[in-house]
């Protein structure tokens, strides 16, 4: 009991000691979580009296919590729909931060370089291709010994921008996918296991033999999970990398609201499941938070961009960076 009393006393005493520490709370996409947590950690070193707390609950969650105004900013890798934005009290700015790739991560013993096409990937996730030895897969992988096993499909159980990007791509390459499932952050999956967050899907794929899932590139890299080489629109097989993602963004015409899809891009070197990821920032903020956010965004666009490469994200193209720098001036 004495212990508890001491504990309670300690807790009570801690409260008045609250220094002039400012906290900003954000939540959303798990896709850019590794780079965001790096940024917020580094930025805390630059500005020790500011803590930016980011919780990776999924893009769907980011959009929801921005709408509810329970966070100071959100994050998503699927842009908000007009209808979603209509529900928010005040204007939301989509601020692109980095580019990333969604990779089909798989767990196959002794198979290090699996090749897939969009159509085959769609059929796997539709449940039409159920075995690794299916002729459609074998045709793309001549000379590779595929296991005679059932494919375990892993997808997200939460609302996810990674899912948005992935389903956006599948909808572009498969008419059946578009009709049956469609594009969204949360979808009605035809088959498979659900994992929470990019972390959860990567965890499940890693632990389940003969599984295939989709995760942001860095999650596959950090965990030594193999990921497939994808056939792009030009018919070339491309592995996800900073270069191939940048190539996917190269041809894009950036609209003023930054909401743009770059999946299934046309370039020869373009990786087909690439996307921008966005911070969702209120145009009008309370309690001077707008200025703090603006400062951070400026830092992110300069110093922050240099930290992206080691984590496998592609920095914003210079032209886009310039546009964003101008656009964030409206934040108050």
């Amino acid at each position, binding site marked *: *009991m004495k212990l*508890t009393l001491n*504990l*309670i006393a*300690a*807790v009570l005493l*801690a*409260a008045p*000691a*609250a*220094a002039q*520490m400012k*906290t900003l*709370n954000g*939540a959303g996409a798990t896709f850019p*979580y*590794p780079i965001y*947590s*790096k940024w*917020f*950690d580094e930025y*805390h070193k630059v500005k020790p009296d500011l*803590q930016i*707390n*980011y*919780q990776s609950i999924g893009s769907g969650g980011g959009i929801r919590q921005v709408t*509810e*105004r*329970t*966070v100071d900013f959100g994050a998503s890798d699927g842009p908000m729909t007009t209808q979603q934005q209509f529900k928010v009290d005040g204007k939301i700015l989509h601020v692109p931060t980095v580019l990333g790739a969604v990779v089909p991560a798989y767990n196959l013993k002794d198979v290090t370089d699996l090749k897939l096409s969009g159509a085959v990937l769609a059929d796997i996730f539709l449940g039409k291709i159920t075995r690794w030895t299916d002729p459609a897969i074998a045709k793309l992988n001549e000379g590779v010994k595929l296991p005679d096993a059932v494919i375990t499909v892993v997808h997200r159980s939460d609302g996810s921008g990674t899912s948005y990007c992935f389903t956006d791509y599948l909808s572009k390459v498969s008419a059946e996918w578009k009709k049956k499932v469609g594009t969204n952050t949360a979808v009605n999956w035809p088959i498979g296991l659900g*994992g*929470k*967050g990019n*972390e*959860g899907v*990567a*965890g499940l794929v*890693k632990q389940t033999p003969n599984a295939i899932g989709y995760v942001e590139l*860095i*999650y596959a890299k*950090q*965990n030594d*999970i193999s990921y497939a080489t994808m056939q792009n629109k030009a018919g070339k097989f491309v592995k996800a990398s900073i270069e191939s993602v940048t190539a996917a963004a190269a041809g894009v015409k950036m609209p003023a609201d930054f909401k743009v899809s770059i999946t299934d891009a046309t370039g020869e070197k373009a990786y087909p499941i690439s996307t921008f990821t966005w911070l969702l920032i209120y145009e009008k903020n309370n309690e001077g938070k707008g200025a703090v956010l603006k400062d951070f965004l400026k830092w992110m666009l300069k110093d922050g961009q240099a930290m992206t490469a080691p*984590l496998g994200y592609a920095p914003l193209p210079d032209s886009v960076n310039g546009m964003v720098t101008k656009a964030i001036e409206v934040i108050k």
Partner: protein
Amino acid sequence: MNEAHYARRKKINALMFTLTAICAAVASGTLLAILGYIAWKGASSLNWDFLIHLPKPVGEKGGGIVNSIVGSAKVVGLAGLMGIPVGVLGGVYLAEYGRGKYAFAVRYAADVMNGVPSIVVGLFAYALIVHPMKKFSALSGSVALAFIMIPIVLRNTEEFLRLVPGTIREAALALGVPRWKVTVLVIVPTAGRGILTGALLALARVAGETAPLIFTAFGNRFNDNGWLNPIATLPHTIYTYAISPYEDWHNQAWAAALILMAFVLLVNVTARVWLRPSSGTSH
């Protein structure tokens, strides 16, 4: 014939008791297996740095969970400050005046709330605190945990108060002492040990709760000194680390589990030893 019949019955007897012995071994062995495994896995990642440092950015090795330890202490501590007084006073009411329809309703409500899944309590705290305040916070997590504590403490207090012999009450009342004074100064202290134990056990129980904190306390990578910001807690951290793909986080999850388990066990064992009939107040 009869002999053989008897031998068969003896055999069945022996067989059945062997089976029940196995059941008992499995049931009680599970705890030992869990404890042993956690101690083994957790101890290898547990060190001083782990206890005093903040988490590293995602995917980088090292870092600690000081934010979760402090956060859990704060959230559970505040929950106790809210839940224990309410539960104890409510329990006093039920034990001393609990005869009418109102008391019946309170008792029924307490039983209902006791049975409500903790995830639903979390849903409730979200609607009650997070949504109106427009903020995830330590406070909302504490409120959720307090709602779980209240019915436990309440019914426990009532039951222990009912064990206080009526003669004590009558003797005090006969001296002309006001009833409220009798209750506060005589009856409650007599049952004090039982009431406190119940409160402690309730604290230990909510310290391990995860579900009601997911959309209330929410999580925080930093330490936060106030009550109105999101906060990390041990069970929530164990959950997020466990489902992550990072080897290093898995090890940290085991170490965090060791800390949580040690706290829960300490409270439980203390409470039970303390309540032993041989040393207890009961007669």
